[in-house]
């Protein structure tokens, strides 16, 4: 079956063991994780996680079902199945000396990056966008030397009305 990139959003209880349960699930069942980001939401009892994975439809279906089975997971949404926005943050430290200083600045501007730290020989550039844009920027930076690079991994959100938040689905045992 055809392997495709999927971006899965997970809303889960903001509890200490939850992240390791998700990571453990992926490693135990042999699913791959390309990126994983997680942070608390506006409701501090909940965390929002975005996972990028590659797999066939049936594998990704299993992934969403298995994620849903985790007790701390409240909701799961496969963003690849709907119109969505994804963004990634990159911080990159590059050599910027001599005439390269202007060249690198110009490139950063083209990509709508911001130079957020400057020394005599170094820039730190901040850039957000889709992964492919970050890749392209890294490519153009070949004119100089990349000293350090850090990417956040993807965060995603569905467009329009559909939102991944809790309705009042409360389960009770009798």
């Amino acid at each position, binding site marked *: 079956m055809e392997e495709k990139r999927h971006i899965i959003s997970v809303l*889960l*209880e903001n509890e200490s*063991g939850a992240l*390791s*349960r998700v990571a*453990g699930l992926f490693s*135990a069942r042999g699913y791959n994780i390309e990126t994983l980001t997680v942070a608390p939401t506006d409701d501090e009892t909940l965390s929002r996680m975005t996972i990028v994975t590659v797999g066939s439809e*049936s594998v990704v*279906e*299993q992934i969403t*079902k*298995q994620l*849903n*089975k985790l*007790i*701390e*997971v*409240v909701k799961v949404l496969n963003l690849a199945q709907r119109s969505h926005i994804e963004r990634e943050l990159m911080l990159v430290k590059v050599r910027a000396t001599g005439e390269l200083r202007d060249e690198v600045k110009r490139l950063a501007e083209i990509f709508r990056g911001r130079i957020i730290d400057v020394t005599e020989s170094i820039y730190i550039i901040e850039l957000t966008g889709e992964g492919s844009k970050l890749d392209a920027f890294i490519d153009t930076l070949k004119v100089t030397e990349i000293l350090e690079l850090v990417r956040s991994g993807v965060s995603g959100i569905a467009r329009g009305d559909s939102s991944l938040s*809790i309705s*009042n*689905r*409360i*389960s*009770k*045992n*009798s």
Partner: protein
Amino acid sequence: MELTGADILVRCLKDEGVKYIFGYPGGAALHIYDALYRQDDVRHILVRHEQGASHAADGYARVTGEPGVVLVTSGPGVTNTITGIATAYMDSIPMVIISGQVPTHLIGDDAFQEVDALGVSRPCVKHNFLVRDVKDLATTIKKAFFIANSGKPGPVVVDVPKDVTANKTEYWYPESVAMRSYNPTIRGHTGQIKKAAKLLLSAKRPIIYTGGGVTTAGGEKELRQLVRRLDYPCTNTLMGLGCYPANDPLFIGMLGMHGTYEANMAMHDCDVMLAVGARFDDRITGDLTKFAPYAKIIHVDIDPASIGKNVGVEIPIVGDAKHVLSDLLKAIEKLDIEPNFEALKAWWNQINSWRSIDCLSYDRQSDKIKPQYVLEKLYEITSGDAFVTSDVGQHQMWAAQFYRFDEPRRWVNSGGLGTMGFGLPAAMGVRLAYPESDVVCVTGEASIIMCIQELSTCKQYDLPIKIINLNNRYMGMVRQWQEFFYDRRYSHSYMDALPNFVDLAKSFGHDGVLVENPADVEDALRETMARKDDLVFMDFITDPTENVFPMIAAGSGHNEMHLSPKAESKDAAPQERELA
């Protein structure tokens, strides 16, 4: 009044209705043990190894449907339970395991007997908790029981640091718990059920394949009604035995690797399959590309992840087996369509001709004890009423084939993990749950050694289990594979230097009998089963060359079974059939 965490814990168990806990003390659990000492409501059974505690609790759970409860100390105490936890997890058995932990301020310090209990158990639990504050203790215990025994059941570990068991708070046990993130689906989708009813009634070669989920749901009554209403053949997995009575003519035996010829052939040829509470395990399906090539499949399971995992299905229904079966029956009545009687008649003729091969036949003239014979006699002598536990190996398969279970929760074995050592401790749990009933542990000389220490527990608590050791001096199941697939290179499957089991049993304060001749089997069984108050270890010296048949080799299809030499002679070599 404020109580200590330890007292709260024990009160919670009492208020949860727990009658027995299976455990073993140690440093981090000593406050809890002290609390146990000061009460009579919850009875503690002291095992001889924590693995035994976990299997005993599991056995208790399997026959009662209530969560089995384990109490152990930190470190080695909890790691010793992991095999038992994984066993329960694979078979969806509800358990609550309470483990002591080092005090909160020492967690992460490599403290004495510290092990990350949540970490080591995570891959084989339904959920686990670390209780950091005594104020959370009661609610956590309530949640643990709720999670363990709802939806698809499973084991839940609650790790309790020692200081939490010493700290005090007001005791209050919640009546119920609410969890926004956990909400199992019970009722099946009405539209899907209606579609399923139509498809079922349109079948020409139907089969109803059910598993452990029907037992869990308590859906045996509804299953029987449905099968009889439709007159369709029914097969059960190893885990589902007893849900449909083995002695009923519509039952075509267990399916899968060591299932009957008729069940596997019918699975292969069917055009409509209703699967209920069964998970299309690889011991059932064999080679997936050859699995049920003509079938449209309806799959009922409480776990959405179980549906479509291994096999594509036509009509998925998420829900509890009992509810869905009962709704399905109603949907069938409403439709007012009759099954295709003519096609059904031809289908039953076909099934009966497969049946006539008599795939479980074995040599009855042998001068060696045939294991099948022992189990047949055991079945007769106990009138099919005993609770039977087993270990893992050939003896397990023979027990499944030859003890004809007519009721669920009578057959107790480790199917998913296949844990040798399970049988004896599980039998202890069963006997405690049913102190008036016959409890038999069918085992092999290799398996029984793995938890033999529990004979001592049986002595302490007067548990008169009957142990049927089918002693073939081999790890028979391993030897069988080596005979078939490794050119008879019997690498390390031979049991050299076995103990004298009769003496061994005696040294634990029990009795034992050695049975070496086929002619003695029946009397020995009769005499032993009549000894209601004694644990008796019956050591049957069986034919070491006997193999389990039928057998589907891994990677083969259902229509590619190996038959016993006896049945082979009757096999009208599978003919080509026209199927659509």
